[in-house]
């Protein structure tokens, strides 16, 4: 019996020119493969928007990549691979394997209609892989991540202290999301609908992002650049995947009863019957009058979160403070939120924890999705994460991307969308 041939390779470019970077990332990704890739995951930081544009970047990739190679990807805040840690550049993971069937699906306008986008994407993948009989079904997804809406008369800020603007901001935010597709990404809705359609699939993905300014982000599929589209890479294969999820957070026991919400529980208006923002910030010792746009850095080590029905911690980043209200990244479930805590040490420790959870000790390759908030909090500490990953993967290729949100779903388990987590998939 002939052993099925598996190869994986990671490529990279640090060139500034979009076309040259596209060529280089593709060249370096496929040069070590003995046959053309069966699928190609492509990521870049936002910088090519100003240095030639993403269409030129993608054109450069296709100057090199064999025509018809299944390709999805998007913009990310940064990445780590065996060559180093970077918050500027492009990277790719190319895989070729004899026992794999691949399909790409697209669902448009995720914020306008998350269900329709999920259905579009999943139906296409199901149809394309209908004849495939391999036992493992995996969907890698990229969902457009959150962007900061612009509030009239105020501009884009994390903290809105003007009471008049803040009072109407929830309505403006809802309109901004549905009509202009700016604001929260509604990724939690998308992943729920995807999981309904693809019950037998492992789903592993993240939200595209920029450099944490949350102005814009892009998705790449085939030869096209998208801005508001869900992308899915469906894999049907006999590879066995293992997965681990950690966050480096620990509960403080400080809980708040949610007494009023809006926007599908994405905005918390009151906690314990009082102003949500005042109640929360008073608890962590930050007077509201001193609060400024450094909110993410201030609150990251005290993230809010809730427990899902299956007992998982679901950390939820605070997107912005609208005077008395807290606008979160995705919907809160349940009646309580809890304050969690983290430190640089526990965030890095989460990488070790994840690796210890994995039964595979000699992986063929790894794909890791971590939150850009972890990158922002760790800064230079990501080089320590890399040391841990290098030690685990040894000579096998791996790619870690820092995205604006992370999602997973498994057969017979609830789907999850998270912030601030570390998720590793290995084969």
């Amino acid at each position, binding site marked *: 019996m002939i052993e099925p041939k598996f190869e994986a390779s990671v490529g990279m470019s640090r060139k*500034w020119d979009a076309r040259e970077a596209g060529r280089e990332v593709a060249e370096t990704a496929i040069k070590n493969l003995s046959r053309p890739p069966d699928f190609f995951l492509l990521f870049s930081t936002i*910088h090519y928007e100003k240095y030639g544009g993403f269409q030129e970047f993608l054109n450069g990739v296709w100057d090199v990549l064999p025509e018809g190679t299944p390709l999805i990807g998007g913009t990310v*805040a*940064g990445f780590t691979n065996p060559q*180093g*840690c*970077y*918050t*500027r550049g492009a990277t790719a993971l190319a895989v070729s394997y004899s026992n794999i069937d691949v399909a790409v699906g697209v669902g448009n306008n995720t914020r306008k209609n998350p269900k329709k986008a999920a259905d579009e994407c999943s139906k296409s993948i199901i149809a394309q892989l209908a004849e495939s009989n391999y036992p493992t079904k995996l969907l890698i997804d990229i969902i457009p991540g959150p962007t900061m809406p612009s509030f009239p008369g105020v501009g884009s800020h994390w903290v809105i202290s003007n009471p008049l603007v803040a009072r109407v901001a929830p309505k403006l935010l809802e309109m901004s999301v549905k009509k202009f597709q700016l604001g929260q990404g509604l990724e939690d809705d998308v992943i729920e609908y995807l999981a309904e359609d693809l019950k037998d699939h492992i789903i592993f993905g993240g939200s595209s992002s920029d*450099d*944490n*300014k949350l102005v814009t982000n892009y998705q790449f599929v085939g030869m096209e650049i998208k801005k508001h589209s869900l992308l899915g890479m469906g894999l049907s294969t006999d590879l066995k995947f293992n997965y681990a999820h950690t966050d480096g957070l620990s509960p403080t026991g400080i809980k708040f009863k949610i007494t009023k919400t809006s926007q599908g529980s994405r905005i918390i208006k009151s906690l314990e019957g009082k102003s949500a923002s005042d109640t929360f910030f008073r608890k962590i010792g930050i007077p509201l009058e001193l609060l*400024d*746009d*450094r909110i993410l*850095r201030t609150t990251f080590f005290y993230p809010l979160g809730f427990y899902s029905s299956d007992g998982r911690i679901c950390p939820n980043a605070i997107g912005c403070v609208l005077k008395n209200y807290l606008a979160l990244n995705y919907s809160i479930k349940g009646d309580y939120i809890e304050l969690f805590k983290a430190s640089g040490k526990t965030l890095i420790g989460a990488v070790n924890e994840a690796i210890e959870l994995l039964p595979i000790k000699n992986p063929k390759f790894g794909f890791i999705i971590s939150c850009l908030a972890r*990158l*922002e*909090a*760790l*800064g*230079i500490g*990501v*080089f320590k994460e890399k040391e841990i990953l290098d030690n685990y993967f040894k000579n096998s290729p791996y790619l870690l991307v820092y995205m604006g949100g992370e999602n997973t779903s498994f057969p017979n388990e609830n789907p999850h969308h998270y912030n601030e987590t570390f998720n590793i998939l290995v084969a």
Partner: protein
Amino acid sequence: MIYILGVLLKDDPIALVLDDLLKLDDILACMVARRNMISVMPSGDGFKPEVNQIWDIIKRAMDDVFGVIGAYSPAGLGEMEFRLQEYEVLFYVFPDTESALVAIVPALANKGLLEVEMENARREILKIMGEQDTAKGIVVHA
């Protein structure tokens, strides 16, 4: 006669590393410096104009900070930073020296992401310095 074999470069490679760093939106200025001296500047037009009005006071503060760097670098001091008005100044010390890669960024910048590229620049500069030291050390006697 003594010939010194080395690599003569038209552009200072360290300046090219600084040029790359300066292309990032939130890096307003960057340099390799030590107390009372800027060793290497980016090769283009210099710093971004936002820095001009505050440069004098930042430079004075930098020189005071280099006093600390000089004292503690041998003990393993790696990074320092301070905030002055609406700016932060980041120092990435070259190990066992009194010099550092210095950058000026806006106070609300996403510093975590910038730190990664500062570290990459420090590593690249250290590699260049190592290569330059090796090149200077090759001497042929004729």
